């Protein structure tokens, strides 16, 4: 099983970061994406399905299933593409003096 991790530090309120990330409308027809729509269920609810059309580097339709959402804390979903399953876990951690590097 392959895996990789990203870590980005942002100077932004955590509510804003979460709102931007979960705003599907914002990402439609941007550089990387084409059409984005919710195929099943309400947006960002457990079990909801989202169809994302990617344009770069391959034009593919990714089927995403939301596994769990904790507002301002965590988003987990499964992506199905090319017969592969990719699990993505996004965690939003406010930087305090204790956890700052």
């Amino acid at each position: 099983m392959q895996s990789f991790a990203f870590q980005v530090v942002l100077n932004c309120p955590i509510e804003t970061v979460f709102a931007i990330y979960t705003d599907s409308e914002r990402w439609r027809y941007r550089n990387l994406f084409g059409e984005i729509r919710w195929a099943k269920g309400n947006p960002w609810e457990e079990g909801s399905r989202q169809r994302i059309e990617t344009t770069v580097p391959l034009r593919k339709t990714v089927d995403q299933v939301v596994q769990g959402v904790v507002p301002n804390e965590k988003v987990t979903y499964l992506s199905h593409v090319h017969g592969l399953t990719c699990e993505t876990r996004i965690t939003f951690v406010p930087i305090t003096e204790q956890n700052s590097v």
Partner: protein
Amino acid sequence: MKLVGKVTRSLVFALEPIIFKATEEFFEEFRKDCEVSARSGPAEPLANKTNAQKNQSTSRLTLMDPVNLRCHDEIAESQAVDLVRPKGNLRLTPSKENVRMVSLLLRNRSDAIHEIQRLFEVWEAVLAVDVVFLGDSPFGNEPAEFGQFLALKRWNAALARNAFLVGKILCHKLFPYELEVAEMPGKFAASIVAGKQD
């Protein structure tokens, strides 16, 4: 199943850098959006905004709360790769596409189909219509074979002028003196074949 597994693993290795790069680009865009929103105020879903509001940029600074955003992606082999499934090959005939596994004792009878097909191949009849004029002979024979092929064409019969078959004469008794024909001198017989009746 081994083939599918190997292809899947190869695909994972091939796709990993692609997914990595795409994720990197996404987070770069995401970071820019967050920085712009941090300067312009609390983010509100764009769906709730009008176009004018979407384009509006303000220089109002808000309180900076640094956020450590972490993302972890794991790619797993879970399904058959689409590229090796029958539907991935557009040129398969229906009989090839509908191949299924035979389970239990019936699997021992699966080769009977080929045995029946082989039986018909053994008893295949060779008919006169199957004869070909140009075979797989060496190229050196081609001109000679081509000449033979043309000799069978009716429209080339004019080249022989008034030639006719001696057998026709003998069988149909065109000549009343059939016995004399047998005793003809060699020269006369040869001239008949050549079409010159002296």
